[in-house]
Structures are given as structure tokens and as C-alpha cells.
């Protein structure tokens, strides 16, 4: 498989973890309880750990002399190809959990399949990450239940968040050209095959949480093409600040 297409395929996976990890990193020290604060920082840590594995691999694949940090910090906004879902802001804890929940269920099924890739490095990363993500999925699903079946206020808030973020779920399954190529080669995951299971799993948790599954006809996309929401720029301003301001230095 062409290296640049493989790199693009991997970035499509890694960028989701990178941007979601960054969003969660904003919350450290601001959680509703100390225990939740620790748990969410943990998820952020897991995601950045995965990111490092992916970017170390892309750095190795790259023809140019690149490092993991070049991939993380030195792309332009239009070159990040994470889904819109993960860049959505931490409007409140409901949004944070809903975003996590909607992503974790996808992430879990995705990594589960990625274990069957023909690319041994991706298999290794998938195996290691799957354990972590299985915990993330339990954490966020449990909170969906607590909030959905908690108080009137929490039910209202988490339902609003789910309704609002639902429009970003379809994009999780979209396939870029690189994705299609990678699938053809037996390296990539055919996301079509996990979609039904995703909806089933998510619906199950929502039902248990006494929440309604949104019934939407229109979905949003763009992130995978590098056309992000207006929230993305500000996230990158912070994330890239040091690398941009002090180019070429070691830290």
C-alpha cells in the first residue's frame, strides 16, 4: 500500500483521539467531583498515549524527517481530519459525557475490528487501546445512565446534549478515499459493518437510561475533509501555541 495513503488512513484514526484528548485536557481540575476529574484525565491520558503510538508509526512511515510532534502540532487546521464530534466544546458535563459516550461506542467497535488488520503495527495498537477504550465506554455509559435516570434536571440536560450531538454521529462511519483504499488492502476497517451494532449498543444504553434516541434525518459532516466547526481553530490556537511561537526547539 502507498505510504502516504496509509499515513492518511492512520491520521484519520489518530486525530480523533488527539482532539478528544485535548478537549478532555481542558477539564482537568474542573470536574464535578474529584473522582470524575481523575477518571476523565485518565481517559485523556489513554487517548494521548494512543496518539503517540499512531504518530510514532506515521513518523516512521513518512519519507520526510518527521516526529510524532510534527504530526500533532504542526499541521494547519484544514489538514486535521478528525470527525466533528470530537472537537465539540465542553459546554457542560452533559455535553462532555454525551460526546464521550457517542464516540466511545464507535471507538470500541472500530478498534475491535482493527485487530484484524493486515498491518501488524495497527493490530498491536488496537489490542492495547481496546482495553482502555472498553473502560472508557463503561465509564461514559454509566454516566449516561446516572444522568438519564437521575434527577429531572439531569435528564433534561443529558437529553439536550444527546439530541444536539447526535447530528455528528453519521460522520463516524463516512469513508474517505484513504479509508476506501485501506479497506481494499485489508488494512482498514469497513465502518459500514459496525454501524448497525453501534446503533444497537447506543440505543440499548439510552433505553436503560430512560432517554430517547433522537430521530434525525440530517447529519453534519466536514471534519474528515478538514472542514471543521468554528470551535476547532481556538482549540488549535492553544494546542499549537508553543510549537508555533518557538519553532524547531526541543522541550
Amino acid at each position, binding site marked *: 500500500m502507498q505510504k502516504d495513503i496509509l499515513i492518511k488512513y492512520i491520521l484519520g484514526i489518530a486525530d480523533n483521539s488527539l482532539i478528544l484528548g*485535548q478537549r478532555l*485536557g*481542558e477539564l*482537568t*481540575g*474542573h*470536574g*464535578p*467531583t*474529584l*473522582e*470524575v*476529574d*481523575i477518571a476523565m*484525565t*485518565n481517559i*485523556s*491520558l489513554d487517548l*494521548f*498515549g494512543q*496518539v*503517540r503510538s499512531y*504518530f510514532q508509526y506515521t513518523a516512521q512511515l513518512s519519507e520526510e524527517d518527521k516526529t*510524532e*510532534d510534527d504530526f*500533532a*502540532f504542526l499541521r494547519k487546521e484544514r489538514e486535521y481530519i478528525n470527525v466533528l464530534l470530537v472537537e465539540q466544546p465542553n459546554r*457542560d*458535563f452533559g455535553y462532555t459525557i454525551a460526546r464521550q459516550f457517542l464516540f466511545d461506542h464507535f471507538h470500541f467497535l472500530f478498534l475491535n475490528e482493527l485487530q484484524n488488520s493486515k498491518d501488524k503495527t495497527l493490530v498491536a495498537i488496537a489490542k492495547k487501546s481496546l482495553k482502555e477504550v472498553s473502560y472508557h465506554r463503561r465509564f461514559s455509559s454509566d454516566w449516561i*445512565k*446516572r*444522568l438519564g*435516570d*437521575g*434527577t429531572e*434536571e*439531569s435528564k433534561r*440536560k443529558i437529553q439536550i446534549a444527546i439530541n444536539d450531538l447526535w447530528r455528528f454521529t453519521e460522520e463516524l462511519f463516512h469513508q474517505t478515499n484513504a479509508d476506501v483504499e485501506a479497506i481494499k488492502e485489508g488494512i482498514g476497517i469497513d465502518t459500514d459493518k459496525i454501524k448497525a451494532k453501534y446503533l444497537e449498543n447506543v440505543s440499548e444504553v439510552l433505553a436503560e437510561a430512560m432517554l430517547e434516541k433522537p430521530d434525525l434525518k440530517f447529519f453534519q459532516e466536514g471534519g474528515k475533509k478538514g472542514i471543521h466547526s468554528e470551535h476547532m481553530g481556538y*482549540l488549535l490556537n*492553544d*494546542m499549537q*501555541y*508553543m*510549537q508555533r511561537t*518557538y519553532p524547531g*526547539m*526541543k*522541550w
Partner: protein
Amino acid sequence: MSEQEVKNLEEIFEQKIARDEKIEPKDWMPEKYRKTHIRQMSQHAHSEIIGMLPEGNWITRAPSLRRKVALLAKVQDEAGHGLYLYSACETLGISREELYEQLHTGKAKYSSIFNYPTVTWADMGAIGWLVDGAAIINQVPLCSTSFGPYARAMVRVCKEESFHQRQGYEIMLTLCRGSEEQKQMAQDALNRWWWPSLMMLGPTDDASTHTEQSMKWKLKRKTNDELRQQFIDQTIPQADILGLTIPDKDLKWNEETGHYDFGEINWDEFWQVVKGHGPCNKERLQTRVDAWENGAWVRDAAMAYSEKKAAKKVQKAS
């Protein structure tokens, strides 16, 4: 209880401490011991929690993935320390809510060092090196303090703090071996954090209260001035390795005493910050209060949910 009984209990209690046995939450203890421990442990816990904020300020801007992961892990450790310490405190019969209440209303104190802003990345190095360094000097003796839960929490805390300190020093080392601009950044951070770090070891002995009683209970083993001297003596050679200059023109080695002499500490600044008027006191408290208030509905939901679950269990059982 008769006066005699109390006296007997006191005697047993004091003998235990003298024998270096631990006092456990269920043991009898003088009220003053209990109160002093609640005050000191909660102050310590609050310091960990507030201490997450100045470093948390750089998580989104850490300059490499490696540093970002290390910083996240460090701030998370601090949350963990807060958790053990609050739990240790709770064994003395005060609730987490009460402890937070004291923090949020400004009734409880926390370490003043966290009321300074983190203005550059080098501050992540300086805090690890100096602030954690001073904290360790304060805390190592507490690993063998008399109150069991506190001593055990401190063993764990100290282990992680040493790791943080090395990590901070390594950040400084990387900067000092980097570009001229990075070295300047490191020097600037040292300039700003040096004096507040010295103040972390507490007021001078003559201005310090509680010392005698604390010595007896092994909450203290050395005086503030002794600890400060120890910190200075250990830190100067580290600064030399970095090639940085300590911002104290009066600093010099004293052959006679075998210690460094150092300049006058600005105690006015110290007391200003302690009394709530440091550069970030308002911001730190506000941040905690905001987090707490914004999280109220989440905690309520969790509570309601677990009550419902419990009720269902009971129903099933009956």
C-alpha cells in the same frame, strides 16, 4: 468520663506516640489532636486540589506530546493526593462537603505558592523542581507522623512527589541545554519562583505558632528555618548544574556554618498572599467554586440514581 479516666487515656495516647506507634481513627485522642489534624490534613488536601490549577493551565499548551502526557499524569496525581488526604481527614469525622465548604468560603487555607500565576512553560519546570522540592522537604518527615492514615497517605504522596520533582528538574535541564531563549525562559521562571518557594517552608521560627505541640505529635520534626536551610543547601548545587543564577545577591557559602547564607525574605508579601491578596487568590478560589457549582446537578443526579438503585434492590430482596 471521669477526670481520672481521661487522664489515663491521655497517658496511654502519649505513650503510644512516644513508642512510635500509630494513632488510628478509632483510638481515643485528645480533641486538640483531632482538630489540629483536621486542620493540617485538610489544608494539605486543599493545596493539592488548588495546586492542580497553575499546572492545569499549561495542559492544553504543552509543547510536545511527551510533556503533555507527563503533565496530565502529574496533575492527576495531585488529584489523587487530594483524594487520599480528604479520605484520611474524613476518618476524623468531618465530611468532604464540610471540607469543601471551608475551602470555598476562604475559611480553610492552602499553600500560598499556588496563588502565583504560571506565565510560561518554564514554570512547569520550576514548579516541579522548586515547589515540589520544598514540598518534599516539608512532607518526608510526615511519613512517620503519629496519625496512621496521614502517615500512610504521606508515604504514597512522597514517592510520587520525588518523581514529579525529577520531572520538573528535567524540564529545566532541557530548557537550559536548549536555545538562548529557552535558557532565559528557565532563568525567568527561577527568578519568579525562588522566593515564593522559600516562603513555602513557613514563617521564621519566631513567628511560627504550634511548633512545640506539633513536634510532640511528630507533625513536625524540624523547625521551619531548619527546613528552609536544608532546601537552600540542596537546591543551590542543582541550580549550578543548570547554569542558572539564584536571584539573591546575598547568597553565599558560609564555611563556618557549612550552610549557605541568604538574603532577607519579603515577609510582607508572604502575609499579603496568606491573607488572600496574592496575584491569583481570587482566581483560584473562583475556579474551584465555579467547578463545584457547575457540578452540583451532576452530583445530585449521581446521588438520586444510586438511591433509586438501592431502593430497587431492597424491593427485590423483600
